[in-house]
């Protein structure tokens, strides 16, 4: 695979050469991969290629495929049937042997050793944890095949094995979107610092940012339990948005279009204000923004803003606001032209 720009040949590239270049394609395919960093750096050194590169990017990014998802539960059903086949072929009617005492003793010793090892290493083997850094999201399937998308700069932790009937529990810091499989028998809990969400089969978004915890319910039903006390349990309906500020113990309850709050998982914001966009970029890309004209913060951008990568988002902002962006370390000043 091509890697890096020996002899500076990319400087002579046009749109056709870029779209056919595997290393360039990698940037589109893995927006968080190492090629992305390389290209962003290259772009800074070749500002004259901005239009060519953005045209090439747009062409490749416009391709997409009809997405087919198997019916709910089909995968688990297929797995169960596969396991049955494995079980029937794996034990081809062994001859029955008399149990000898020493065999039993040996088995007991083996079991004891195994359980000792298990106890000693229990922490490493029973918990899974995932972290995302700035600018990165992560899509996960939980052991019950519920779905979780972890937003940037967040972490999640849960047990590796979930037995049927056992309470399903997830610990979250930062922001995540959940699509929970409903199983009649077992409870699903999401723990954050300040509250616990009890799920009754649903999709929703939790965001613990800037000290506040925010829950937006897309569909289904969930119950909030507050850690500190002071608030009674709360039952949420689709479209509800709850913000808890633990500093003042204030609870804000509004209704909203949930898609607005969950669209980050597709790396886009819908009908957002400049203030919301900047806040998103600050939280997810570890930047600080200074708006020289603070009245811009309330300005509404209709439609969709893509947040695939910081440079594209900044380019969009500077165009929409007709402003210059001045970078100084991690601070970006927005100055109207």
């Amino acid at each position, binding site marked *: 695979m091509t890697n890096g720009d020996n002899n500076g040949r990319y400087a002579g590239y046009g749109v056709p050469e870029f779209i056919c270049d595997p290393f360039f*394609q990698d940037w589109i395919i893995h927006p968080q991969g190492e090629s992305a960093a390389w290209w962003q750096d290259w772009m800074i050194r070749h500002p004259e290629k901005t239009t060519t590169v953005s045209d090439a990017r747009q*062409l490749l990014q416009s391709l997409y495929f*009809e997405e087919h998802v198997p019916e709910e539960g089909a995968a688990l059903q297929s797995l169960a049937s596969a396991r049955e086949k494995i079980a029937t072929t794996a034990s081809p009617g062994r001859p029955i042997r008399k149990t000898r005492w020493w065999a039993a003793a040996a088995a007991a010793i083996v079991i004891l050793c195994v359980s000792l090892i298990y106890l000693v290493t229990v922490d490493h083997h029973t918990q899974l944890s995932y972290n995302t850094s700035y600018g990165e999201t992560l899509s996960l399937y939980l*052991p019950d095949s519920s779905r979780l998308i972890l937003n940037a700069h967040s972490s999640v932790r849960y047990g590796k094995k979930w037995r049927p009937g056992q309470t399903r529990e997830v610990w979250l810091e930062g922001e995540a979107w959940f699509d929970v499989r409903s199983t009649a028998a077992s409870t699903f809990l999401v723990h954050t610092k300040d509250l616990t969400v009890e799920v009754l089969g649903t999709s929703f978004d939790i965001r613990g940012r800037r000290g506040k915890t925010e829950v937006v319910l897309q569909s289904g039903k969930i119950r909030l339990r507050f850690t500190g006390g002071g608030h009674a349990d709360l039952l949420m309906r689709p479209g509800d948005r709850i913000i808890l500020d633990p500093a003042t113990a204030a609870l804000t309850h509004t209704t909203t279009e949930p898609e607005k709050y969950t669209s980050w998982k597709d790396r886009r914001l819908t009908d957002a204000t400049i203030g919301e966009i900047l806040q998103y970029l600050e939280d997810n890309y570890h930047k600080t923004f200074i708006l020289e004209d603070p009245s811009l913060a309330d300005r509404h951008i209709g*439609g969709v803003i893509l947040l695939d990568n910081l440079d594209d988002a900044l380019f969009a902002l500077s165009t*929409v606001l007709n402003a210059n962006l001045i970078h100084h370390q991690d601070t970006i000043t927005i100055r109207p032209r």
Partner: protein
Amino acid sequence: MYNSLETDIWTLVGSGDQDAYGRLYVFYYKRLYNYGRKFTDDPVALEDALQEALLAVWTGRERLPQIDKPHTYLISTFRYILFKKLRRDQKVVRLTAVATDDAGEPEFGIDQLLIRRDTESALRDRLQQALQTLTSRQREAIFLRFYEGLSYEEVAAILGISVKATYKLMSRSLLQLKETLSLPVLTILLLLRGLI
């Protein structure tokens, strides 16, 4: 979507971890289903091919450590099994139809490759038209590269052609799309529209 399994999942399955196998099964079931649906919407053929390919992972788990890229290997196995099933079904139909395509390869659905809805509409129409001119194999190569995120080497292994041929196939497809456009400065237009 590319990170949904632990990185050591294949090692775990190779060592006989049944729970790991369960996670791998569910993950690849969904992913391969999406791939298989591009060729057929016959639920029986799909389910049979999915189960056969995924069962082979467990029955052949002892050989897993020797397989260089188990992920690509699984996709490729699934494709082989599915194609075999579809070709068999096709034969039955073919007796009455005049065979026009000797290879009888299953077709990657022409309506499966699309242009993003948020692409500016004039551009979208032209791209959509250009897509119609691609062959089944070209569409599949684009899918494996840009949707599944595979490398050229992996795409080549799955399609059963050389890496060089894959480069040619891919470039020809992309340039064919590019041909139909003279790209205006669309990004800016798109965003400004939001303000009005």
